[in-house]
């Protein structure tokens, strides 16, 4: 038998409840699905006004220490916020900047680097992202093909990164590269010479990504986060990332279930609400089971993420269960809606696309189970 799992407290604090209600209110008022559609069809999927408002609400710096201008809150609070963002498939670079880049710098950066980089992220003046993937099915990259060679007291980066979230919006790109002493993570200015950012047409147009090529890009000595091989640190960053993503997935899945239930109550066929048919009713009930399971693992994972041993189990557990749940619920939501659910004008597809893309971006559930299996010794 595995070691006894830690007990956590699931009930939200008052502060967490406040974050939830504030976030829901703000997102429904200021983002809403009409605005999501506008942004989704826009050139860069980015709304600078909205971004500024999120910064003013303290969201961009939610998990950044107060000493760096952030709110000093933790992964549980970020999970609450991301559940709400997931409910509305909120577009923009929030996940890339406030989760990916922020976590990378917090986990890997020296105190000096954190002091230098985090305040601008917290305030939203800088949009950051992480460029870590190169191959379509390597989510735990052994060593990047991208290289960083020392030159003139600095580094020269060479390589191509894929699926760089918000790559087209980012000011600061954190790039993983092989060095002569292991993997390094380098801060690259998106506008620097030799940085070519190519936004890609994506399945989920509410979350943009780009291919980023680095053609002899020069950065200075201090651009490398921390010291020595960052492989372990990157593992922690990715674990925190998929846990944050799981919260977002739970929010989306919950909303899909609600859409289905609402529709099943009002749509009539053969003189009865379709929700009175077991085919629909039982599907909605199975959605409930999947959503509740996903919620449990996601909320558990944010609560144990600082426990290094347990998070090796809890993070991939949350990622696998929440990914599969969201993809399933979002797909069945279309089925419950029938023809209308397959139209562009209905919102169901926004969730399916978000769900499917999210289930691939940081590893499939199969990949997460592999990591989980290593952690639990199976």
């Amino acid at each position, binding site marked *: 038998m595995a070691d006894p799992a830690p007990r956590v407290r699931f009930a939200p604090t008052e502060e967490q409840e406040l974050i939830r209600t504030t976030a829901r209110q703000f997102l429904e008022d200021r983002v809403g699905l009409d605005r999501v559609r506008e942004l989704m069809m826009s050139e860069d999927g980015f709304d600078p006004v909205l971004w500024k408002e999120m910064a003013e609400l303290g969201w961009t710096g939610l998990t950044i220490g107060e000493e760096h201008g952030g709110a000093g809150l933790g992964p549980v609070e970020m999970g609450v916020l991301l559940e709400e963002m997931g409910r509305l498939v909120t577009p923009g670079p929030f996940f890339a900047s406030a989760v990916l880049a922020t976590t990378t710098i917090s986990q890997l950066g020296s105190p000096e680097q954190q002091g230098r980089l985090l305040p601008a992220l917290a305030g939203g003046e800088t949009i950051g992202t992480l460029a870590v993937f190169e191959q*379509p099915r390597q989510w735990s990259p052994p060593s990047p093909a991208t290289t960083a060679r020392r030159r003139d007291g600095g580094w020269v980066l060479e390589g191509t990164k894929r699926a760089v979230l918000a790559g087209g919006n980012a000011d600061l790109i954190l790039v993983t590269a092989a060095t002569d002493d292991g993997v390094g993570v380098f801060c690259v200015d998106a506008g620097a010479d030799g940085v070519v950012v190519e936004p890609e*047409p994506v*399945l989920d147009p509410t979350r943009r990504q780009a291919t980023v090529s680095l053609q002899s890009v020069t950065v200075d000595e201090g651009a490398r986060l921390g010291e020595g091989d960052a492989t372990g640190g990157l593992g922690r960053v990715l674990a925190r990332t998929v846990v944050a993503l799981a919260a977002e997935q739970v929010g989306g899945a919950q909303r899909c279930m609600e859409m289905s239930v609402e529709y099943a109550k009002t749509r009539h066929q053969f003189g009865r609400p379709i929700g009175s048919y077991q085919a629909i009713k039982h599907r909605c009930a199975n959605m409930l089971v999947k959503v509740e399971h996903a919620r449990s693992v996601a909320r558990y994972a944010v609560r144990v993420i600082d426990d290094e041993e347990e998070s090796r189990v809890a993070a991939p557990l949350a990622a696998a269960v929440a990914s599969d749940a969201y993809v399933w619920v979002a797909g069945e939501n279309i089925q419950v809606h029938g023809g209308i659910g397959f139209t562009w004008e209905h919102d169901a597809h926004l969730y*399916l696309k978000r769900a*499917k893309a999210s289930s691939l971006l940081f590893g499939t559930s*199969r990949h997460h189970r592999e990591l989980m299996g290593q952690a639990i010794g199976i």
Partner: protein
Amino acid sequence: MTDPVNERLDDLVDALLADHPPAETPEQEFWGAQYDRGLAWAWHPVGFGGLGLQRRHQSRINDRLVAAGASIENRYRNLLGIAMGAGVLDAHATDEQKRRWLRPMFTTEELWCQLFSEPGAGSDVAGLATRAVEDGDEWVVNGQKVWTTMAHVAKWGMLVTRTDPEAPKHLGMTYFVVDMTSPGVDVRPLYQITGEAEFNEVFFNDVRIPDENRIDAVGAGWRVALTTLMNERVAIGGGSIPRESGYIGQAVQAWRDSGADDPVLRDRLLALWAEAEAARLTSIRADEMASAGIPGPEGSTGKLAWANLNKEITALTMEILGLDGTLYPEGYELKRPERFGPHEPQKAFLRTRANSIEGGTSEIMLNILGERVLGLPGEPRVDKDLPWIEVPRG
């Protein structure tokens, strides 16, 4: 074993080919000649594109035409007309109506579409609300239809309307053929989650249809519509496709291209390969049994099975693609499609979500299998005998 009917058919086909060599004859001219000689729908009466034979004789004709290099592309180009509309006309139309419509339908000079589904009447087609009101020798139609393919290019539409809202829902309907170029017909593209509009919404705003375009009696619309739906079922049936073709072929290709070697994904691919092959063999078995005159339950499972399979296979292909699955190479620029597939894998993933909805949802297919094939009892019906206007809707 020689069959005198087959011999005569072969002679007729040979004569058609000799008089109108496919290589030198414009397609529409060839199809016109084919119609005039009764080689269009062999089971139709003489004079209406047929010879009074059986459906299976048409397969023989088509095989020989294809072998001789003639095109049978009209069957796809005007699918809704030739596969469904013709059956309705054959069963329910007057001779005059058939003479007016069948030949240009077969030559594709006049394309057809089908106007059944409505926003409020999907699975429950009989719940439709598009009204037709008699006005002298004409009918005035108001309402909205959805999910009509071809409506933007069609000359004629097969239209089911409600003419008596006081009658129970299945009784108060009447069937028309509507000229899609009439004033008041407004065809708009209906964009799907792929960003493409394969389908249309069609709005009817005081559209006038002459009574001579009515098919069968006033109030007989549901019976006529059922003929169409039954012909649709036949047309959608699997047919004979090669092993490892279609979506499973695409998945295998993606697997090989990816250089993937994960045994877990491979086993899932193999499981779907096996199910796809089982479904394919079931279609072949069903075709053989049906043409031998002993149709069995194996003929009714294809639509349901392929809907599930297509969805699962394309989802697995996305997983095989990994990060490539998060791309959407064509982008979502809203447009009418230039072709109906094959789709790139990401679009195939989205497109197949509708396979369990279009042409009868999987829930309805399961009801049909349960009730009509296995003989299980129906649901209690609350709407059967109520006047249509009193049936709850929404």
